[in-house]
């Protein structure tokens, strides 16, 4: 009947955790990668700018040199040569910078060399002209200038520089494209990994919901089983209570029958025997001593028999209760109690019409309570009340004795358990309240049965 417990797939949780971590790692990696690449590209772009600047510096300085030279040879004033002095070193450092920048670049290094060479040529041509002028060889420098060498050289440098610049431009474009690509890839990568994360998360949520539903179903099954068991327990308890009551009734019925038999038949026989003996005695006023002795012995034997019969009858069924009613029986019981203990009992007893099981139960309750008072309580005051009202009988036995704590009640014997069972089976209630030093109160109610007793 037990439902099989669902087999927990042990690898699910670690897998889920691994997948989740992987996806998280993926997003991080993609983001990091695109960041790095973009930073690299921007770095290169910075380098590109530096290169461009230097190339343009070379061009500019050469132009400066040319115009310085032109100015000087045109006017002869030395002031025009002022910028010329640093041109060579400027161009030199610019070329060095370029060389350093492109030192590992096999495509561009020859281009740089070309620019450097052409620049040098142009510079030498320029300074040649100047030195010719300084030497006073005016025809020489005229001729030199008339030959297109200056312009050609300049053109050569310009071309070399432009080639280099166009390579640079191309490179810059490539870098920029690379940046865009990187960003695009990064963006796609993040989208994909985010989407995957979302999907995984949804999957996880569903799994969770399924697990929760399974747990709730299991809990409901368990509850249903518990409820079913509860019902069973209640049924059994009711059966047991019923059985107990039945046994109790049977027992009392048997005892009643036995007591009646003893009383009616055996009692009558013994009393007859005594009467016969009495007549015998009267018939023999002066018997011989042996006969007299025999008759005395016979009398005492019969008396013992009668005593035994009476004790047995009282044990089986208190005759007062049976014949004289509950109230009278209780009065007699209390009288005997007072005689034994010297304690007066305050009584408040009403007549009550109870059927035999109820009467016996109430009587036994009072009997047991008084017995407890006698044995344990050391009380000064005892109150007993039996009241009939509102369709039920209320019994109270209160004493102001030592009381007892709830714990010692664990030792409650079968008698009290049985009493409680019987009272509850009759539809009544029993409560025993006590505390150390506060006395004891036994309260019980028993419904008055309606209909024929």
């Amino acid at each position: 009947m037990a439902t099989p417990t669902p087999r927990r797939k042990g690898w699910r949780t670690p897998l889920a955790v691994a997948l989740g971590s992987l996806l998280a790692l993926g997003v991080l990696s993609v983001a990091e990668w695109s960041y790095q690449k973009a930073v690299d590209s921007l770095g290169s772009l910075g380098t590109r700018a530096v290169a461009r600047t230097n190339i343009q510096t070379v061009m500019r300085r050469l132009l400066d040199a040319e115009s310085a030279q032109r100015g000087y040879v045109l006017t002869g004033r030395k002031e025009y040569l002022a910028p010329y002095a640093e041109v060579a070193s400027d161009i030199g450092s610019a070329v060095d910078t370029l060389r350093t920048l492109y030192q590992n670049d096999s495509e561009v290094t020859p281009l740089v060399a070309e620019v450097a060479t052409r620049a040098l040529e142009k510079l030498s041509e320029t300074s040649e002209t100047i030195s010719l002028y300084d030497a006073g060889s005016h025809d020489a420098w005229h001729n030199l200038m008339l030959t297109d060498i200056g312009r050609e050289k300049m053109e050569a440098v310009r071309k070399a520089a432009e080639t280099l610049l166009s390579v640079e431009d191309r490179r810059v474009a490539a870098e920029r494209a690379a940046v865009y690509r990187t960003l695009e890839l990064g963006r796609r990568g993040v989208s994909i990994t985010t989407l995957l994360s979302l999907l995984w998360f949804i999957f996880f949520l569903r799994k969770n919901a399924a697990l929760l539903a399974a747990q709730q179903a299991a809990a409901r099954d368990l509850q249903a089983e518990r409820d079913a068991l509860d019902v069973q327990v209640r049924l059994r308890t009711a059966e047991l209570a019923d059985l107990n009551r039945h046994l109790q009734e049977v027992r009392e019925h048997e005892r009643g029958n036995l007591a009646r038999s003893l009383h009616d038949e055996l009692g009558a026989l013994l009393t007859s025997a005594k009467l016969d003996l009495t007549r015998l005695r009267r018939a023999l006023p002066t018997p011989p001593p042996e006969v007299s002795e025999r008759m005395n012995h016979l009398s005492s034997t019969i008396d013992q028999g009668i005593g035994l019969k009476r004790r047995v009858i009282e044990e089986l069924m208190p005759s007062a209760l049976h014949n004289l009613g509950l109230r009278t029986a209780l009065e007699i019981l209390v009288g005997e109690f007072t005689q034994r203990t010297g304690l007066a009992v305050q009584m408040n007893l009403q007549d009550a019409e109870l059927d035999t099981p109820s009467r016996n139960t109430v009587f036994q309750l009072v009997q047991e309570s008084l017995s407890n008072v006698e044995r344990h309580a050391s009380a000064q005051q005892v109150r007993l009340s039996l009241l009939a009202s509102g369709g039920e009988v209320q019994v109270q036995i209160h004493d102001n004795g030592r009381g007892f704590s709830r714990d010692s009640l664990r030792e409650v014997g079968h008698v009290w358990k049985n009493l409680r069972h019987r009272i509850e089976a009759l539809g009544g209630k029993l409560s025993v309240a006590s505390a150390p030093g506060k006395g004891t109160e036994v309260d019980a109610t028993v419904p008055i049965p309606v209909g024929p007793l």
Partner: protein
Amino acid sequence: MSPLRTFIVEDSTIILDNLVATLEELADVRVVGSAPDEQSAINWICNGNGGFDLLIVDIFLKSGSGLGVLRAVQDAGVEVRRVVLTNYATSDIRKRCAALGADRVFDKSGELEDLIDYCSHMAGDSAQALSVLN
């Protein structure tokens, strides 16, 4: 000597027969009637079924009790001697019976002789009373 007219309330026929025989033999008693339960006893007594001198009552009867009979006789104010003969002669019962007007209480096993003596005495008394009148 005229016998003591006696009415016995006792539910066991064995005891009743035996008791009647013993009393009539040993104590000059004439049993004028008997009843096994409280109600028929009261009916007989209070319907004035002749006069009688002595009432012997058992406590435990087929229905009702001897105490009820005593009470009824006391309430009715019937002039008659009442004694209780019972198996249950505790001091409490004795007190109750006395309170209800019983003159004596006899234990069925231990005090039968005393009952017979009492009846003889009563019979003697009544005979003396009669002889005085005569």
